[in-house]
């Protein structure tokens, strides 16, 4: 089963897709992968697609939250897209927080967010 993080550049963004059930080293690799790609592609931000993710535990949540903070420090924006209903219910119940990271229902909506509104990446 494919269990790697995929990072592709879409326009000026990085579309980062998480696999359904990543192990800890794969989750840990997220930070370096995303930050390297930010620099290499001079990206304006990161769109993290977690629509396949079936389990979001505290380790995963912490890593995502820290990665978003690092992307902010590099001048980028992070949007998390596609959290499944069961994952959202569980995350809230267990007390997980993703800080102030922006979220979107789907990758499509997240792309819309980047092309319109006051926080537009294009306008930067």
């Amino acid at each position, binding site marked *: 089963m494919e269990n790697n993080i995929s990072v592709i550049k879409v326009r000026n963004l990085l579309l980062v897709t998480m696999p359904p059930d990543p192990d800890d080293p794969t989750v840990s690799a997220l930070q370096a992968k995303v930050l390297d790609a930010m620099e290499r592609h001079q990206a304006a931000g990161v769109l993290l697609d977690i629509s396949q993710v079936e389990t979001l535990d505290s380790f995963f949540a912490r890593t995502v939250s820290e990665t978003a903070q690092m992307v902010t420090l590099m001048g980028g924006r992070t949007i998390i897209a596609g959290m499944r209903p069961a994952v959202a219910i569980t995350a809230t119940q267990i007390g*997980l927080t993703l800080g102030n990271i922006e979220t979107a229902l789907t990758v499509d909506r997240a792309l819309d967010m980047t092309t319109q509104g006051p926080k537009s990446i294009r306008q930067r």
Partner: protein
Amino acid sequence: MTMTSAPEGQVPIKSESDIVLARREVREIAAQIGFSVTDTTRIVTAASELARNIFKYAGQGVMHWRRIEKGSSSGLELQFIDNGPGIADIALAMQEGYSTSKGLGLGLPGVKRLMDEMDIQSSVGKGTTVTLKKWQRS
């Protein structure tokens, strides 16, 4: 992998990749028992937290799972057993926001909220056994 109809089984936790194996096995069994997607996600998430606790604090241990029955309802019991350092103050460890390692300060209270029953037996220097139960809503 586990036999589909087995009443119980176990997954040794010795490495980070075993946390994934524990999650997969719990997901499979929970689905077989007939838990909803949301309950299955709750159970798998709880298992992930406790399997990682074993790896992080004790180095190694084991997760036991068992199908359980009470009257007409069925459920799943998970036991996380290690011979690690143990928990000196269980009441403190159960306090909201308490965590001994760098984390979100969630741990055990969060796991308890995901499950129906939780029991912790621990003695310092001998180890810890955490027992979780989830009943299927009928």
